[in-house]
């Protein structure tokens, strides 16, 4: 996620859709492999999946029509920072529980 934030700052839009997709698939795998996740934890992971899916669509749309609205780097990085904090906390809780 830190790498994606860096790519946003560099505005290397062409590289980003693939990175969002990798992140999204990793999160889907974590969700599928964690049967003991609580409803809140599942919702937190689903939130991150949805953010990355939407960012991918937003960037693809911009790449297809560069004259259209440019994605906002501060806004996107703000969302990723929040997701990173939430998921770091979630993973720490899972590790502490021995999952």
């Amino acid at each position, binding site marked *: 996620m830190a790498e994606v934030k860096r790519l946003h700052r560099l505005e290397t839009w062409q590289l980003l859709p693939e990175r969002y997709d990798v992140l*999204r698939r990793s999160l*889907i795998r974590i*969700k599928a492999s964690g049967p003991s996740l609580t*409803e809140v934890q*599942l*919702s*937190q992971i*689903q*939130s991150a*999946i*949805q*953010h*990355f*899916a*939407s*960012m991918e669509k*937003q960037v693809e749309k911009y790449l297809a029509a560069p004259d259209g609205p440019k*994605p*906002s780097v501060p*806004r*996107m990085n*703000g*969302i990723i920072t*929040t997701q990173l904090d939430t998921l770091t906390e979630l993973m720490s809780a899972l590790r502490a529980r021995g999952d």
Partner: protein
Amino acid sequence: MSYEKMAALVTRLANVTEQRTDLWERTSEDGVFQASFPTYAVRIDQRPGDSYQNESDIFVRIFDDDGTLIEEVSDSDLSRVMNGAYVVLVRLYEAARRQAMGVEAALDSILEALGGEGEVDPPGAVDADEGTDLPF
């Protein structure tokens, strides 16, 4: 499409939004707010629709577990099965926006910082001593 079920979902979302403070969050798109559940996510936004000229419609979208859009309805769609759909959705959108932006938390914090200074009675408030005919 089952507009009845979507109307039920919107009503339930409006009720839960009133009860919770952490349901809605900001997104990377301006004016779009998201609520997440274990397997699905819901987004609400306001954009030009086709119901009335120069007026925005409120849209509710449902996404599946890998982030694919599976359903979208607007207030004009819901008005076929729901009385006052526009008002319900405008209220839901506004509540989602305030929650996602942390408006209530900001107001609470500022009010606490200001303390009781300059406090005025809300309109219609009556002193404990007023409104009684008792002579003491």
